[in-house]
């Protein structure tokens, strides 16, 4: 019996395997995954693909979740690090091409850009979406892509312009001139503005106003003051937004000033900025300390000085730290949203555009909106454009202190960076205005050239 059983079983197995190999090696997808065909088959799943982008932006500590503020803050004259590590390279304006934070900025931005391109292609090729749904998703994705390119071009100068997911094409793309990047950014934003509704999910997803506000900023950066003024005016006069009454209220979730913010997603971290800036007690040394230069620029009665900075005292020394966001973890108080665009910026954009268009009195009016909220007396430039521009630079510095790298970007935009940073940084070199292209990228793409000075 035994022997027949074994012979029988063995033969069956050999025959079975020989005849049905294909079935034997069929595996399912991992339990938490889908294929791209399914993702863009209907509107609910396509929407999830866009939601993924936002979640991803808030989840990791990267370009869109704090690194911009910290790295650019150290590179400019706003912050210095207290912990040992590569951060000191930013403070010393001596960033090495192998710096992890720089590769994180670069790789993170391009990973977000890939996600957006994948959404754009998925939506365009989908047969399960209506034209209206498609336009909404495309507008959102293209606006997000423009946002990433804006930071890439400001950090690194010319960068490869990637607008497809096909790696056979994208892996050998060389750097594209900054003007072409800006052209693409403006095209994406204009498209988004033309198709997006006024609101999708409050101010925590891209809507028409976000595209408009970003357009205002991009026009300012490209020196197109007329269009910058037009776009900023559109936001300011929409009356959908108003300045918070006091600096402390600016970053609260219900703040009317917010144009675009990201929701916290981690079950622990509130905003990454609060998480990294706010020490666990006032006797702990903060990871990042506000520089004397910045600290002393706030005058005594500026409300922003007391409301947007905290002070730690350790072993008798005082360490001021950024305190715009107050809740490091969601257990520390009201969870805050991470604000990307707010109305105050539109006033400053318009003020600067007006000043450059030699419309000093309008510029004064806009600047005084910001000063007033900070508890400062009105300012008059006595119709002097230089004085006006200088005051605008100071208000940018104070109102957007340690916020999204505005100081670093503005100093570069206005060409004042060498003059300003030579004064506060011993080893300042003009080449340090652009971060190095990460070493890995240069190695992996033979068509990518390094920035000067690295």
């Amino acid at each position, binding site marked *: 019996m035994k022997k027949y059983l*074994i012979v029988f079983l*063995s033969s069956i*197995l*050999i025959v079975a*395997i020989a005849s049905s*190999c294909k079935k*034997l*090696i069929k*595996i399912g*997808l*991992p*339990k938490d*995954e889908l*294929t*791209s065909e399914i*993702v863009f088959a209907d509107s609910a*799943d396509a929407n999830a*693909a866009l*939601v993924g*982008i*936002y*979640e*991803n932006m*808030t*989840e990791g500590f990267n370009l869109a979740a704090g690194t911009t503020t910290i790295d650019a803050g150290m590179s400019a004259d706003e912050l210095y690090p*207290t*912990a040992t590590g590569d951060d*000191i390279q930013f403070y010393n304006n*001596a960033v*090495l091409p*192998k710096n992890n934070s720089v590769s994180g900025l*670069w*790789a993170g931005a391009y*990973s977000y850009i*890939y*996600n957006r*391109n994948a959404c754009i292609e998925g939506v365009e090729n989908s047969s399960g979406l209506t034209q209206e749904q498609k336009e909404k998703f495309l507008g959102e994705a293209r606006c997000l892509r423009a946002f990433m390119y804006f930071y890439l071009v400001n950090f690194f100068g010319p960068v*490869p312009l*990637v607008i497809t*997911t096909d*790696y056979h094409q*994208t892996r050998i793309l060389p750097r594209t001139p900054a003007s072409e990047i800006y052209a693409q950014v403006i095209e994406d934003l204009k498209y988004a503005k033309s198709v997006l509704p006024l609101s999708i999910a409050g101010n925590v997803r891209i809507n028409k106003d976000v595209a408009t506000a970003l357009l205002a900023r991009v026009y300012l950066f490209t020196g197109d003051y007329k269009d910058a003024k037009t776009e900023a005016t559109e936001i300011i006069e929409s009356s959908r937004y108003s300045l918070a009454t006091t600096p402390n209220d600016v970053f609260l979730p219900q703040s009317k000033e917010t144009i675009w913010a990201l929701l916290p*997603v981690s*079950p*622990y971290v509130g905003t990454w900025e609060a998480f990294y800036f706010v*020490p*666990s*007690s006032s*006797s*702990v*040394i903060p990871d990042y300390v506000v520089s004397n230069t910045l600290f002393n620029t706030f005058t005594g009665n500026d409300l922003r000085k007391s409301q947007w900075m905290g002070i730690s005292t*350790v*072993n008798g020394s005082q360490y001021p730290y950024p305190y715009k966001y107050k809740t490091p973890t969601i*257990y520390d108080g009201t969870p805050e949203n991470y604000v990307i665009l707010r109305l105050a910026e539109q006033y400053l954009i318009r003020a600067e555009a007006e000043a450059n268009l030699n419309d000093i009195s309008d510029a004064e009016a806009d600047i005084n909106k910001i000063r007033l909220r900070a508890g400062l007396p009105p300012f008059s430039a006595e119709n002097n454009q230089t004085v006006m521009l200088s005051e605008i630079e100071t208000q940018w510095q104070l109102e957007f202190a340690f916020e999204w790298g505005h100081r670093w970007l503005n100093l570069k935009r206005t060409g004042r960076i060498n003059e300003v940073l030579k004064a506060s940084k011993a080893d300042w070199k003009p080449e340090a205005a652009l971060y190095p292209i*990460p*070493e*890995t990228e240069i190695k*992996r*793409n*033979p068509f990518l050239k390094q920035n000067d000075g690295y």
Partner: protein
Amino acid sequence: MKHIIYTIITVLFPAMIYCQTVTGIVTDSTKTPIENVTVAVKGTKQKTLTNAAGRFSIKITPSNKVLQFFATGYYTLEMTPNLQKTIHAVLRQSVSSLDEVQVIAYGTTTQRYNVGSVSKITAKEIERQPISNPLAALQGRVPGLVVTASSGLPGSSFTAQIRGQNTLASKINGLPLPIDNPLFVIDGVPYAPQNVNINQMHSVGSPGAGMQLNNNYGGSSPFNSINPSDIESIEVLRDADATAIYGSRGGNGVILITTKRGQAGKTDFSLNVSNGASLIGKTMPMMNTREYLTMRREAMQNDGITPNLTTFWDPSYAPDLLAFDTTKYTDWKDYFLGNTAHNTMINSALSGGNANTTFRIAAGYNRNTYIYPGDFAENRASFAINLHHNSTNKKFNIDFSSSFAYDKNNSPGSPNLLKAYQLEPNFPDLVDKNNNLIWSYKGLSFNLGMGDNPIAYLRKNYYLQSNMLNSNLQVSYKIKNDLSFRTSLGYNTLLSKEYSGSPSAALNPFQGLTPSADFGTNNFMTWIIEPQAEYKKKIAAGVLNILAGSSIQYNTNATTRMIGTGYTNDDLIESINAAPYVSAGDKYSEYRYAAIFGRINYIYQNKYIINLNGRRDGSSRFGPGKQFGNFGSIGAGWLFAEERYIKENLSWLSYGKLRASYGLTGGDGIGDYQYISRWATTPYPYGNKIGYLPQNLYNPLLVWASTKKTELGLELGFLQDKILLSTSFFRDISGNQLISYYLPSQTGFGSVTENWDADVQNTGLEFTVQSQNIRKKDFRWSTSFNLSIPKNKLRSFPGLETSSYALTYKVGLPLNTIFGFDYAGVNPQTGLFQFRTKDGELTSTPTHPSGTDFGDYIKIGSTSPKFYGGLQNSFTYKGIQLDIFLEFKKQMGINYLQQAYSGIPGQEFNVPKALLGRWQKPGDISDFQKFTASYGDAGRTILEYYIVSSAGYSDASYIRFKTINLSYDLNKLIRHTALKSLRIYGAAQNLFTITNYLGNDPETQSLYGVPVLKTFVLGLQLTL
């Protein structure tokens, strides 16, 4: 045929007419008749073979009446027969290692009849080494196999590579990636984790890739779960003939591990107990306080900086000069690494059985402590069972083997511990009277512009706990004498659990860090079913053996991670329940595999061998239409010493074989699911919606990588196999490279799995000599020696210039070629390192490579070994046995300078004493540039050039006294006791190393890593 020839010969020689016929029988010592023995009349061409009953008849003449008996596997016998009687010749079985059983794919053979390239390490060789990981037992003993330890810490991983690097992408940015691992099979079951590190978290044994710690392969070895003393043999399969039957997974060679079986007879109980100690060997001395402070002051002076106690974010902050006691001195290296680790090993086994059933039951315990202060150790308990049963008619056979091991490795959790001895030598006290950590000195906080309290690293706990089960059941039935069926069922699983905690006691209170703990599991599982049929039949004067079978395999890997933060009580930190904030994630992948395979082996006249292998494989790692691949090999051997004219004319040549093989093997060594475009859910909802994120760049066209292997071998045995020599030449060409192709991040991802049409060639020569130099009754001396001379090169790489590898590889050079700046000493005027440009000029600012231009980079060398091998000498005098094993390797490696200059020597941390030979004033000729404390060009840019220059590489060749084992049999003492044998022994591992290496240890090549330890053990072995 033969008989006809002999008949013709007889007819042709009339002298034969006068001869006389003798008859006889040939048996072995157990009186079992032996078939096919050549019976010859000495000095004539008269010859015959014995029949199945061992009988023969042959004609002799009065002048030529000496008979010779030759048979494979037996010593040659000569006798002058008594013509009146039937002759009874008894042949003694030869002890030639040529006839020992050799395990191969789906069967066994002997070296004599194997046409493949296979090396065997026996239990005897393993048992003489005081090691706890079976991979360690292979170091230096197998030609063509390089096994390298990643660290000297208990449980740390080993890399294993057979016959060189086959795959591209071995390194990018100087960081090597997992090398081509061979396929590991234990008792017929592919080991579920293979040689992949089982840990997910960092710890002192797994610091991760990074210039400073330079331990890219560090991690926990899955082979810690295998008790070496349960291993009967390890076979290393190299060429196409030996590996092609493994098809797609044989491309990188195969390592077969076979566990011990029971022996029929009286039940034996054996016990082996040993105890020992391990120490660190020679390491680079660091500066003492006086030298260190000299360096610091000089650096400040060179930079024109005045030290202060306020600007801690700036290089001018100098508590070591201004606040610390400048007369205090602690040798931190001695403090952390100067301790002794202890090793305990207990192995016991019960074995026995009868003609039908045999068994072996074994239990083992192993404990290795750490050289770091504190209660850190790796403990392993293991059990193994082997059962065999056969029916009395020997038609039905069943074999069951199962082993279980529990391993817990409890170690310090912080990799920073490795560089703890960078601490300022005059650093203040670290703990107070109550053994609590101190975090500041004179109002200055630690880790703020100065060193951190390294005791904290010891208080971060980590453990890795694993349970491994490996079971195999093989049932076979002989339907007829020549046909048998068998089915092999195997199951292997390794479940590991990991914990890494940062309790508040280990956290600097001035940094406001919250206590946290990380929990993980990593589970591997494989099952395999392999039904097979084997047909064995004598055809003509040869033996035909046909094997056909199929294989279904299923693998899964599931990992989980949970991180808890905000613990309020350190006593609760090992539980996730006590964490107020928890985040979690998991991953799961599966892999299926199905194949049919076959082998045809024919041995004609015990002289000519032909062996064909074939396999058709399907793997779930490839997309539709690409899943199946065909592999195969052809091998042939000629035992030329069996030819009559050689036997007669070169009687000293007792064995000679020429063998050759050619075949195609493959590789599917990529991740699962690479052929589909996948989107996964986001870890958290945004608002209240879950999002999707793309997971990969996919490639639906993926197919197998293929390796074409060619081998030629010559094996010789002299003086009745007292000297055995084996040489092989091989050439492996790996094409259609299946690689994780590195992409610039602008594509959205760091890599994509691709087939790349680049050819990598590995060639080499391998020699093995085994010799029994002296074989007397009381004294025996034997030597074995192996040497491998490998050569690796990139044969072709279409499109190299536009690929991500443009600055990594050059066609014609080895894959492990190092490119870097050409270091040219220190400029006597400026005191800065300088380099030679490609135009031969000296500069301190050479040009970096860019695009496809290597800039001022030159070819520095290659990290692949030039040659390597081992030399074993064994001496036995009466009951005393001495084994000495030397491992040697000629290679280039990373020296200590690359790591010493990863920081800026002159800043506030200690460096090797050697750097005192620095440049001080114009005109100085020196090896090291001036000290500097700032981030100016001297400290930053030039050091960046320096660490990628030829200065960072140098000779890392060594000869290591790997194992010395002295044992003494006390069998005389136990004559009247129940003991069957008693032996005491002492063994030393890595006793000393002869090397010119600049740094700690030429094998692990890390300034801050833990070199392989010197281990001394004393032990006792007995059998009851």
